[in-house]
């Protein structure tokens, strides 16, 4: 089923020209490469995955002095990849702020006794002071690790998440890691994710993946009996329980999920990953590196999948099952059939209320493309989308999802996004907390598509029901009708007078 609609290319082109005209020349020239329209849809209506071109420059430095929404390498490593590994202590190594602001902000759900055998919603820091900058922080770091060993003996290792000063003052955290790993007979992973590295959180993901490769894989004798149906779920951070809503489906079709990365993960799950039969990767952006590594070194194939919205869930389950042959394929069909009544009940309930509504997205990771079809499953249209920290391959993949004329904006600035929203007046914007409140002030419904606005899960069939309900609750909320004071409204006055 292809959901057909066209976007207003002329309007979108004009909006791009308008915002660029407001920049100083140098910045306008740089920003012009990041703004575009999806073009030349091929074979639309025939293929389920018609490919549009949406070429923009990406993964290059943000323009200084504008409101970029991007984060840093530390955010990519500690905040995204490592932070959710629950039985390790992740030390924010450096001054207090980075750990404080990222403390418990990503809703990486997990099961465990926090502070005893799990540590995700805690903030561990070496709280750098001026003297640590002057004399170096290696000695302090050693002591931090010793104190963790004493106070949190059930932690299964530590990671050292470097903040900006660590790299600048030249501390040797790798030496500390080697020394302390030996002394405490535990896993100590140094991660060079200083915030100034790279241009966004994206390099932090890559660095974090490399740290898994270099400091976790093949370091222990693993006792483990593999089965031919073992899969790792890679790049699902279990926001609001996403990974659980996915896992339940994978198990139902007969697979064994041996590792959940990195939402609700333990170090053991990461260590055993190289013994699995297949890597299933959801957030391609943050975890393709380690999947490629496992393919090269251990011969484990990997495939991307999309568990947002029923049409992609159905398709992904079939693709995954195909890899394992008829037995799993048969089970997958049964599972898809089992959930059809739920899917159709959801669509019946919301289609009338949501179809034809226009959505603008601006998120990170995989969501600027993966959620497109989830909206279309409810009859909604995507008018604009873009990535905070996407690369060229992300935009290529986006072409599978968007329609011609879709406004594409890479590393959009606060100014541009505001102007685009004003110009298009969509029915819904899906972005992050920094964008939420300005958009709502404008009277436009909004959902936080990083945190699911404290709802979720959105993955899987169970999540699709929540996704649909949440979009309806945002768009059809009575509050949007109350923005204009009635005494400013002639019709209301006439009604009272009349």
């Amino acid at each position, binding site marked *: 089923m292809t959901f057909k609609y066209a976007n207003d290319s002329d309007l979108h082109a004009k909006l791009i020209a308008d915002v660029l005209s407001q920049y100083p020349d140098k910045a306008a020239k740089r920003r012009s490469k990041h703004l575009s329209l999806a073009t030349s849809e091929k074979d639309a209506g025939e293929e389920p995955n018609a490919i549009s071109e949406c070429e923009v420059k990406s993964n290059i430095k943000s323009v200084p002095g504008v409101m970029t929404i991007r984060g840093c390498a530390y955010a990519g490593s500690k905040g995204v990849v490592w932070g959710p590994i629950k039985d390790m202590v992740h030390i924010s190594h450096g001054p207090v702020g980075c750990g404080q602001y990222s*403390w418990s902000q990503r809703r990486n759900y997990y099961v465990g006794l926090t502070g005893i055998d799990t540590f995700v919603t805690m903030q561990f820091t070496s709280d750098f*002071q001026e003297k640590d900058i002057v004399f170096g922080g290696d000695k302090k770091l050693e002591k931090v690790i010793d104190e963790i060993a004493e106070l949190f003996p059930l932690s299964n290792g530590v990671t050292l998440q470097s903040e900006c000063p660590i790299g600048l003052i030249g501390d040797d955290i790798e030496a500390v890691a080697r020394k302390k790993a030996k002394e405490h007979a535990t896993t100590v992973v140094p991660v060079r994710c200083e915030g100034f590295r790279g241009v966004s959180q994206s390099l932090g993901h890559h660095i974090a993946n490399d740290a898994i490769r270099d400091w976790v894989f093949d370091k222990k004798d693993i006792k483990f009996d593999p089965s031919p149906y073992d899969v790792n779920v890679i790049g699902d951070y279990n926001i609001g329980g996403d990974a659980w809503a996915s896992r339940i489906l994978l198990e139902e079709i007969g697979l064994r999920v041996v590792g959940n990365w990195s939402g609700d993960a333990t170090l053991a799950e990461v260590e055993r990953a190289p013994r699995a039969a297949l890597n299933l990767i959801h957030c391609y952006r943050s975890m393709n590196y380690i999947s490629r590594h496992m393919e090269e070194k251990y011969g484990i194939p990997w495939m991307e999948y999309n568990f947002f919205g029923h049409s992609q869930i159905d398709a992904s389950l079939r693709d995954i099952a195909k890899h394992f042959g008829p037995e799993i394929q048969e089970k997958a069909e049964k599972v898809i059939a089992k959930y059809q009544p739920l899917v159709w009940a959801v669509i019946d309930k919301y289609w009338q209320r949501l179809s034809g509504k226009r959505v603008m997205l601006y998120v990170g990771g995989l969501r600027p493309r993966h959620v497109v079809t989830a909206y279309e499953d409810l009859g909604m249209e995507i008018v604009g989308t873009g990535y905070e920290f996407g690369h060229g391959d992300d935009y290529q993949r986006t072409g599978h999802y968007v329609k011609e004329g879709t406004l594409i904006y890479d590393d959009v600035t606060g100014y541009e996004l505001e102007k685009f929203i004003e110009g298009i007046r969509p029915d819904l914007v899906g972005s992050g907390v920094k964008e939420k409140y300005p958009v709502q002030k404008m*009277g436009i419904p909004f959902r936080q598509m990083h945190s699911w606005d404290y709802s979720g*899960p959105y993955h899987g069939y*169970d999540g699709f029901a929540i996704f649909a309900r949440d979009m309806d609750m945002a768009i059809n909320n009575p509050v949007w009708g109350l923005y204009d004071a009635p005494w400013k409204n002639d019709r209301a006055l006439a009604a009272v007078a009349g």
Partner: protein
Amino acid sequence: MPQSAEKTLDHAPLFCEPEYRKMLAKKKLKFECPHPDQVVSDQREFTKSWEYREKNLARQALVVNPAKACQPLGAVFAAAGFERTMSFVHGSQGCVAYYRSHLSRHFKEPSSVVSSSMTEDAAVFGGLKNMVDGLANTYKLYNPKMIAVSTTCMAEVIGDDLHGFIENAKSEGSVPRDFDVPFAHTPAFVGSHVDGYDSMVKGVLENFWKGAARSEATASINIIPGFDGFCVGNNRELKRLLDLMQVTYMFIQDASDQFDTPSDGKFRMYDGGTSINDVKAALNAEWTLSLQYYNTRKTLDYCRDVGQAATSFHYPLGVEATDELLMVISEISSKEIPEAIRLERGRLIDAMADSQAWLYGKKYAIYGDPDFVYAMARFIMETGGEPTHCLATNGTSAWEDEMKELLASSPFGKNAQVWPGKDLWALRSLLFTEPVDLLIGNSYGKYLERDTGTPLVRLMFPIFDRHHHHRFPLMGYQGGLRLLTAILDKIFDNLDRETMHAGVTDYSYDLTR
């Protein structure tokens, strides 16, 4: 299948369904390699012990769950209190994303801040180019009246010279020569957000006051509120009181409108705040009052240097602290405290007398910024409560001395302990070994509430998991009434919860209290 379209379960009930419970149990058993249950429960019990407490308090390097943030957050908050001022943080851009999210999550409001987006090349060559281009872009795009520049630890470690950079940028035409670009050095490895606030406010004053001649002192009183997550309610309440007293005053730094803009179809990037003309005029004030000492130490010294009289309070809340504030204002303005305010005071006293029995002898743990902990301990003692643990991660030994002096002034402070520099993981041990009835502090205390069963009254910054508290004042007598009610509500809610089991504990599930 637990999910349905009619009754859609979101995460909280969904994962309590048997299918998910079973799946999670299997995951743990087969794949997580957990420690044996006995080992986990033994360790859990051990963390409640005095032995663990001693190890925990003896920590020298590790900080766990600190109740403080870094300097630039304070600088960004400070800049938000000036008219049409864009905060420009010089350094790596991730920091700015964090300050913006943090402020937005607390106030449920937009937070507009730009970064100079320094990356590896700037780490090597310095961030001058980022400043030159950045100021030009900020000026052109966001149409500010002023750009307030602060730093991250990166810019500080490489030693960027803000003043020189800004001058350079002006020479290159990034902003007009006479455009105001105040700045503050705010390294994250020194002090905390309260110091960043201090540096930025001082930076703004210096920008306008340096070299300006002070004319004859005016009767207007300058008021600096300090870093305050409740600025929306507090600043407005203080203005109401000052207007009632008919005092001429000027708030220097006032983010109450910036973090409380109305929803009416328009996004206002800037709203309210102290205007440039007012900051300039404030030089001539005879007095500058700071509502929080630890937030304004350097600023107040500077005010004194220019010839103003200056004094500070410790986040004035409760009866006596409000009395003092009003009396000082009355004295320096020669305006009487009107009868209407005396009646308000009387109403707070009335309320405290009515509810005294529920508060007498209750023990509290209070944590947060130094001025707030001081103020709260003082108010608790006024209600007949005992501030058993007073903790400020960014508290100094000078704060400790002040706290001890305060606590010694009342029999209710007799058993109190003061914990400067300690974090919330230390407080966990304190709560297990020397329990209290109530915990007062920000949202991070929810983990302490869960682990130790101590009910949490959420106050100050940040409050992420409750909505709109900051819209109501804590300061003044009205604020005192609100505080009193918040504490009482927590006590009554808790009592009801404990006594509501029908036929078991509901003999005390009383209707009238």
